[in-house]
Every structure is written in structure tokens, then in C-alpha cells.
């Protein structure tokens, strides 16, 4: 299991950060200033959350004059979908082992 899951889980674990990401997804490209107005935290805090989102590949930034705009990269969520597939495969194989064991066990 690659650690891309872990990065995404940790990145989205913070409710403020998750809310910022949801908002960028919902409303399209946003400036830091616009995001700060609704986030309920300071602009430096919002910038810090955006930097973490950017490191996880969840947002892209674009500089225009003194403003930085952020837009969502929803494709970065793909590893979360992979997680389900991987765990399902893991448990299917464990069920096979369990059935083998049950056949060997005394009643």
C-alpha cells in the first residue's frame, strides 16, 4: 500500500483544510483573500492550509499580480478510490485463507 493514501488522509483530516478544499471544488478558482473571508481563520493560516493541499496535489496555484489563485485538482483523490479496491482484494484473499484454516481445524 503506497503512502499516497496516507498523505491524502492526513491532508484531509483537518476540518478547516477540508472545508477550504471543498469550497475550491465547489466554487472554482479562488484567491486566498476570498477563501479567508469564509474560512473563519487568519489569512496566514489559510495560506498554510493551501500549501499543504498543494503539496498533496489537491490544488494548483496561479500567481496574478499580488494575488494567488487556487484551483482544485480532484483527480488527486484517485488513491482513495484505489484504497477500496486494494482492501477488498486483501480481505478476499484473507477469506480464502480463513476457509482453508476452517477445513483443517478440529470440530
Amino acid at each position, binding site marked *: 500500500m503506497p503512502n499516497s493514501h496516507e498523505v491524502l488522509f492526513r491532508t484531509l483530516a483537518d476540518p478547516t483544510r477540508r472545508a477550504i478544499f471543498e469550497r475550491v471544488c465547489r466554487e472554482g478558482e479562488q484567491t486566498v483573500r476570498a477563501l479567508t473571508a469564509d474560512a473563519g481563520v487568519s489569512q496566514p493560516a489559510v495560506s498554510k492550509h493551501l500549501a499543504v493541499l498543494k503539496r498533496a496535489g489537491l490544488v494548483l496555484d496561479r500567481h496574478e499580480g499580488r494575488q494567488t489563485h487556487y484551483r482544485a485538482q480532484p483527480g488527486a483523490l484517485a488513491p482513495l*478510490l484505489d484504497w477500496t479496491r486494494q482492501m477488498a482484494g486483501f*480481505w478476499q484473499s484473507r*477469506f480464502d*485463507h*480463513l476457509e482453508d484454516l*476452517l477445513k483443517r481445524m478440529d470440530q
Partner: protein
Amino acid sequence: MTKTATETLSVVVERDVPFPPEKIWRALTQPHLIEEWLMKNDFKPVPGHRFDFRADWGSVDCRVLTVEPNRTLAYTWSAYGLESVVTWTLSATSTGTHLRMEQSGFLPDQQQAYQGAKYGWQKFFANLEAVLARID
């Protein structure tokens, strides 16, 4: 985002097994038997007991949540930054047992209430689904 997105962090595996629940329960709860089909462990069938599963690729931190002999077993499963709950359900059938495993994942800040946490993830993905349907 597709329909599966809202179910992203839930995995269900079900199987009809030609053995009685009592026998399967032993395989699910006795450490030396668990090791044979799952992983090395220090499991005890006691709610609140903390244990881990160990494999060559790493370990999984767990805590026992529910123990209803021959019926239900649930424990937390924490690995790779994701807290999840694994729930085993055993239902006797005319030919043996219907065995069901559900693993539901949720984020580390939402551990307090399992149901609430599960909802949190689903809500998150449901919101995104609605949003992403409108993006390209």
C-alpha cells in the same frame, strides 16, 4: 466523481461458509488461529483491549469494540493514516454460516463517534460528487 465515490471508504466482503458460527468464531478470536489466516497478533476478545496485527509490511493498531460471541466482532483498524473499523457478522444458515466483513474508514479527527465519522466521510464525498459533476 462517480457514484462509488460516496462509498469509497467502505469495503464489504461476504461469503457463505460450510461451518457453524461457533467454529468460525474461534478462528476469528483465538490468536494462534487468527495468525494462520490473517496476521500475527495479540488479540483478546475483550472490549477496550488494544492489540496489533504485525506483518512484514508493517503493523496495524487495533482496539476491540464489540464482542458478541458467535455473532458480532468489531475492532478499530488503524494503518497508513486511516482509522477504520472492521466488523465481522456471523449469521447461522441451513448449510453453515453467512460471514460478513465490513471495513469502514474515516478520518483521524473524527474518531469520537463511529457513526458520525462514517457520515462525515460520506458527506464529504457526497458534497464533492455534486461539485465535481459540474466541473468538466
